[in-house]
Structures are given as C-alpha cells and as structure tokens.
C-alpha cells in the first residue's frame, strides 16, 4: 500500500485543494457576499441621512447585521452542491470522520465567503463614519464572530440539506441562533464606543468559538447522516 489509506491531513488537503480550485473557477461568486454587505450598508447610510453622529452610533449594529445577513445568504452553498452531486455520500464512505470533513469544509467556506467581507469592513466602517479608534474592536469582534456564525450555520445547513429548497427555513432556523453572537459582537463595539472595556464581549465570543469548533462539526455530521437518508 504505497499510497495507503487517507489520513486526516491528506483528506483535509484534498478538500482544501478542491475548494480552492472551485473558487478559482467561479471567482466572481466569491465577491458576492462582500458586495451584498456593502449594498446593505449603503442602503442604511442613505436611509438614515447624512447625520454623522446618528450614523456613527448606528454603525456597530448596522455593520453586524449586514455581515450576518450576507453570511446567511452564503450559507445555502455550504453543503448543497455536495449534497446534489453525491459528494456527501462519498464523504460518509471515506475512512476519516465525517465531522472532520465538515469542519474543514466549513472553515474553507468561511475563508472564501467571510474573509473577503472582513477585508471590506474598513470601507464599510468609513461609510458609516465609525471612529477609526473603534476599528480594532470591530475587526476583532468580526474575526471571532464570523467563524462562529459559520459553524452554527453549518449545523442548520446540515439539517436542511435533504430539502430541495431550504431558503427561508434556513433563515428561520439560523437567525435565532445568531442572536447571541450579534448581541455580544455589536455590543462589544458599542461598549468600546462609550469608552468602556470591550474585552468581556470579545472573550465571550472567543469562548463560543472554541465551543463551536468542538461541538458544531459533530452535530453537523450527525445531521447530515439523518438528512441524507
């Protein structure tokens, strides 16, 4: 057995290479979540008028909601393609744990949908007149919060993977679970804006991320097994 059975590392590499190649083939799609978030923020900025103070005060909430909604839109692509072409069946037949493949796939999905968005966040913050002193807190909260949203979303997405069209149901299931992330994420920026220490919210986000990193892949793998009967 010169090539041997796949290890955790080699299976992850195969999945990462595949996702990067697919991303390159459809590179236009990768920018869509970021463009969507920019549009939402622009709409808010237009609707709220040009009062600097009002925009700056609304900024943490608006930015977080924009990021959350664009993540929600991208969520459906997490497992759907793999469910439709039979890839998920082959994942289940692979000699590595399904939860591991789910974790790798979720992190790749986060990397390809949320990270372009994080890059665009300074632009969005500028649109909302968010004081530059708050950027580090905002970016830290988003850097901790978006992978957490992806992991929670993975469980919901796995639950609905057996359905042909999950659109609104996906949102109805995911949004209530997103609430704590939104509260602590936007809350930490708002705290910092009032001159308080923002580390409490950030630490809670970090704790949630660690918890989700361990539990969400297992739950999502179980959901895939049930959904894809």
């Amino acid at each position, binding site marked *: 057995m010169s090539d041997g059975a796949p290890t955790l590392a080699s*299976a992850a590499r195969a999945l990462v290479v595949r996702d990067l190649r697919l991303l390159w083939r459809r590179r236009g799609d990768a920018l869509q979540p970021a463009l969507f978030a920019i549009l939402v923020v622009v709409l808010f900025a237009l609707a709220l008028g040009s009062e600097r103070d009002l925009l700056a005060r609304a900024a943490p909430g608006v930015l977080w909601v924009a990021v959350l909604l664009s993540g929600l839109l991208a969520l459906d692509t997490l497992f759907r393609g793999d469910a*439709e072409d039979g890839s998920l069946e082959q994942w289940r037949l692979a000699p590595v744990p399904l939860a591991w493949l789910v974790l790798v796939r979720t992190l790749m999905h986060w990397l390809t949908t949320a990270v372009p968005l994080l890059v665009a966040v300074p632009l969005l913050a500028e649109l909302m007149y968010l004081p530059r002193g708050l950027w580090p807190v905002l970016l830290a909260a988003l850097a901790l919060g978006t992978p957490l949203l992806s992991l929670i979303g993975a469980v919901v997405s796995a639950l609905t993977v057996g359905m042909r069209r999950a659109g609104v149901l996906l949102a109805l299931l995911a949004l209530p679970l997103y609430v704590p992330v939104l509260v602590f994420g936007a809350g930490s920026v708002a705290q910092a804006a009032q001159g308080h220490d923002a580390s409490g919210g950030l630490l809670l986000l970090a704790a949630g991320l660690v918890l989700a990193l361990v539990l969400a892949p297992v739950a999502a793998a179980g959901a895939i097994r049930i959904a894809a009967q």
Partner: protein
Amino acid sequence: MPDAPPAPAPLIDVRGLGFARDDVPLFGPLDFSVEAGEALLVQGGNGAGKTTLLRALAGLLDGATGEVRLHGVAAAAAARAGQVAYLGHLPGLKADLGAVENLEYLCGLLGRRAGVDIVQALGIAGLAGYEDTPARNLSAGQRRRLALARLWLSPAQLWLLDEPYANLDLPGIELVNRMVRAHLDAGGAALVTTHGAYAAPPVRTRLLVLDRAEQAA
C-alpha cells in the same frame, strides 16, 4: 480441491438484513454471503429495493435491521467506511473540475490503490485525452466512465455497483465487465445491481432476485 484448509471468512456475510420504510417492508430479511473472487448479481424490477439494499450495505442508510460481517468481523454501518467502494447514481463529481482534478479529490478522500495512477485509470476507462475537460462538458456516459475510473482507483475490496451499466455504450458495458473480472481476479468481490440480465460480468456469479420482499439465492 479436497481437504483444503478451512475456507477464509467470506468477504461479506449478511444475516437477516431487512429494511422497512414507514413500516412497509421493502426487502428482506435477506441472508447471503459473497466470498473473495465472487460477484453477486442483484436483480429486480424498478422499486424492488436494489439501490436501498446497496446503500444499506454501504452503511449509508440508518434503520436497516440484521447483521453485516466483513471478513468475519461484525461491522456496524459507520465501521464499513473505507472498506467498501460505492458507485451510485450520483458519483460525487464536481462539474467545474477537470477529470484529473476530480479523481485527485476523490482519491485524497477515499484512498488510492497501490500501483495505479490517475492518468492510467483514465486511460483504462477510455477517457484518455479528456484529462482537463470539466465534468460538466462530459456526456452522461463519459461521466459514468469517470466514476468507473474512480472505482478502479479505490483501495476497497468490496465493490457495490448500483446499475453500473446505465448510460454506457457497448464498449462501456464491456469495460465494466472487464473491470469487475480483474477486480475479482485480484481477490475482491462485487455486488452488482441490474434490472435485467442483459449484461452480466462473465465471472463466478451468484444471483439474488429481489422481487417485492422475496428472495432466491
């Protein structure tokens, strides 16, 4: 061969395998075993449960009753991963990836048989010259051949082939038969479903007829 040493445990041994959907039994309970170097042809009309049987054997289906032993060792559904190669209606090919890229991905996930490389497998499957063609530009028959190339690369001893002849032309059917024969000669075993007897691999074959919950072996 008289006085041969005790035969090794069959590659797959199934006792009392049954499956019911919404309390309506679909097939079984079935008892059969397949030894190395043997093929089991599963026949039955549409809806007789051929695909469900194969999915249950692959461990893709929860709720099947009965016991499955691989190499004489009881194997729960999850424990069968990596020991079987399943070729279903959906082969798991990504439409945007080329033939070689698809095989690299699936081999990275499922493992690769020693001594077979990807380009060679594509040649055997009759896809030489299509190495970089995205799967979406291949015909249904060519995609099936690509799935067969993946099967050829699989390190698993037990092949579960669901309607492997679908969409294939005559040389393609011949290709499936050649691959199954070579696999059995190398000590593997195969379960092949088909809705007719028009194309059976010319090997030591047993027949399992699924006829609305009745069986023959």
